[in-house]
């Protein structure tokens, strides 16, 4: 059977050498032409800015808005079943691993921050939470909480949104020439908590809650920065802001 197939292939190869070669040439030419066309279109699009920055920022801000809403819901879920003693031993928010990042403290300060800095801040914060979110998603399975399933789902959603937002912001940064030139610096904010959030029930809940509260604040920061950026970029569309 196989021999016949091989024979047939050989025959086909032999038969098709001439015609097939011609066909191949045509195909190759078509491909080249197609590639050229594609590239030109892509360049044109990129050059012309087919999708305006404001729209991209709008989408990003919407994504960050969703992210923050999810985190708010998560913290409320955890608060409903939180032991009072946990509040006592809860570490302070200054203990968040992202607290080392200098962010504006009020409106004047925030409005004075440059756009690229705002963007880099947002991206840094987002970057800093990829690992801890992973830790959260793994440790939620052992979380002694009645709404464990919904919490687990929301954590997963958080991860997805966070990832997509990060990708979008990266693209966005690449689009803006200014930001490209300035080579935004993304601060590294490592998470030192490790994979373990605690052994006993109270510590687990407390650590979980603490992490989520830190994430909630950081997501709000990201959202605020992006919305400021959106309004700054939408000078052509005053109704937006």
């Amino acid at each position, binding site marked *: 059977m196989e021999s016949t197939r091989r024979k047939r292939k050989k025959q086909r190869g032999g038969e098709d050498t001439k015609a097939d070669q011609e066909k191949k040439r045509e195909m190759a030419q078509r491909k080249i032409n197609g590639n050229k066309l594609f590239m030109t279109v892509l360049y044109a699009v990129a050059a012309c800015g087919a999708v305006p920055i404001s729209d991209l920022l709008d989408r990003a801000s919407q994504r960050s808005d969703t992210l923050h809403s999810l985190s708010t819901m998560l913290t409320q879920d955890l608060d409903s079943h939180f032991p009072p003693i946990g509040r006592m031993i809860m570490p*302070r928010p200054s203990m968040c691993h992202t607290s080392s990042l200098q962010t504006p403290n009020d*409106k004047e300060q*925030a409005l004075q921050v440059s756009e690229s800095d705002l963007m880099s801040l947002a991206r840094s914060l987002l970057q800093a939470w990829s690992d801890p979110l992973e830790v959260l998603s793994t440790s939620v399975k052992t979380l002694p909480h009645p709404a464990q399933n919904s919490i687990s789902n929301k954590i997963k959603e958080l991860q997805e949104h966070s990832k997509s937002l990060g990708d979008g912001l990266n693209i966005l940064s690449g689009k803006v020439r200014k930001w490209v030139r300035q080579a935004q610096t993304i601060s590294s904010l490592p998470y030192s908590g490790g994979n373990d959030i605690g052994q006993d029930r109270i510590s687990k809940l407390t650590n979980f809650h603490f992490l989520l509260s830190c994430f909630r604040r950081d997501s*709000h920061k990201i959202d605020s920065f992006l919305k400021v950026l*959106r309004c700054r970029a939408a000078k052509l569309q005053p109704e937006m*802001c």
Partner: protein
Amino acid sequence: MMKKAVEVILLLFLLVSMPHAKGTRYSPPGKPTLTRCRSPEKETFTCWWEPGSDGGLPTTHALYYRKENSETVYECPDYRTAGENSCFFNKNNTSIWVNYNITVVATNTLGSTFSDPMDIDVVYIVKPNPPERLAVTVKEDKSWPFLRVSWEPPHKADTRSGWITLMYEIRVKLEQENKWEMHLAGQQKMFNIFSLRSGGSYLVQVRCKPDHGFWSEWSSTSYIEVPDYFPREKSVWILITVFSAFIFVILFWLLHMNSHSLKHCILPPVPGPKIKGFDKQLLKNGKSEEIFSALMVPDFPPTTSSNFEDLLVEYLEVYIPEGQELTLQESKDLHDGCLKSEGSTSDSDSGRGSCDSHTLLIDNCGEAKEEERQQDQERMGMEAQRHQKDWEEKVLNYAHEDIVSPDMSSGRVKTWPSVFSPLPQYSSNPPDQQSSLEMAKQHYLSDSLFLPDSSSTYLTQPGHSTRESLEPSYCEFRLSNKQPHQLHPQMQASQQLHMTHSDVNISSIGCKQAPAGLQSPDLRSTQYVEVQKVNKEDMVLLQPVGKGCRHIELCPKMPQGDNYSKVKGVNSDNILLLQRGVMEEDRCPCEDQETNGAREHSHTASTVTTTQKPTACIHTAMPVQDEMVLAVNGYVDTAIMCTLPTY
């Protein structure tokens, strides 16, 4: 001493009792509670608290806060701006994304009480002020107006820089309603409301909410009136018109669908004549000639061209299987006047139906027959009248009877009018005739009148040709309700002889049974009925001859070998005089009377007048009156009293 002691005691008592009298005790203040903290624009914020009991002493409250990174405790910078029991943090004192730990302390002379601390982050407690400058206008859109609502964000909220992102919500309601209509407007500052009620007045309000905060309060209400763009009266009339038109269409369609049944209901169909063999279309055509011609039995009624003589009944033959027989004799005298009505023995048309049944009384048969007779006569119309007149003149009618054989189980008795048939039929083969005859026919065997000339006897022998016998004159009891009066004199002239032979079975049908006679099939095969009288209504009352005085209906028995009416003669008035036969055994006294009066009584043959009362023998002295009382002399008694219906 005593006084001083008393005073001291009183003072002490007062001192002790004073506080009891007042009922209060001083205590440290109660625990205050921080109710809420709010920031209207994410730049400043305010905290309010609720003081506890003051403990009866003037208490002061103080708010202390501590930021998350430092341990420094600060006191509230501004207690007055925001009102009573509040603390206002201005821009300088407000930091965002920083946790504040706030505590309120209530202090009085006896002590101080701390409230529960509260941790807040300013960005999470944003509740803006309501939107400002709400403007509502009515915009026309091709006579369908709509509301355009526009507003401004609260002046403190900085939405231009994107610091705060606000979303708005509008609510609208009619002035007289209770329920608001909510519309989410997003981030835009303008909104259109459609589907307005013409002429209604609306209330509009708007509020806003930051992207992650609390809803503001509702703005001040804005009133707007929508002009009348849809005239109400017109709309109402249009609605009424459309609705009624719709109903009319439905009604019309329903009527149309049920028109057939409605026609039957409102205008019931007129029953048409139901005569077998009679074509209704002829009546509808309205041509009398055709009608009459259709009605006409082939040989009946005899037309002018007919030869009357042919119609003469030769003789009546009464079939008595073995015993008595009547010879129906032809009457020469009746030649002229008698018309023979040829009724087919098997007359499928007239008078058949009701008499077919065994169970019917012969009364009914007779009535039916009589009626049919009359109907037939009526139909004749003009031609018939002529014939009738002729008949009337002729007086004598021959009545044929079917010879009822004793074997006839069907008990057919034909009424004499319908029985017209040539005698040979009867005599020759009674059984055949019987077979030819319809079953269950009741016939009245009426003997013809015997002319006095003839010395014939009633009895004929079976099989005996009637022609052989004498020719009695027959008078037929003519049924004619049309001209009863006219007929009366003529009737008087005509003598009627009715001999109805009732069959054994006839009596069994319901007529009187002639037990004795019936039992002897031979002798009693035929029964004789005597016409008692003709009542006022042209009813012939027949009475079985024999026990004559009895009511005919009550005469169960047939006289035995009795009561043959014998034609005595025809008087000048064309009245057939009958006399009783010789063979009578039992004579009813009435019969005697009859015989006595036989001569004198005349029967009106033509008119069928029967007395309604089949009383006892009326023969006696029954002068012929207008009512045509029939006095029968020596009549053949009939088992059945036949009362002919009046017309």
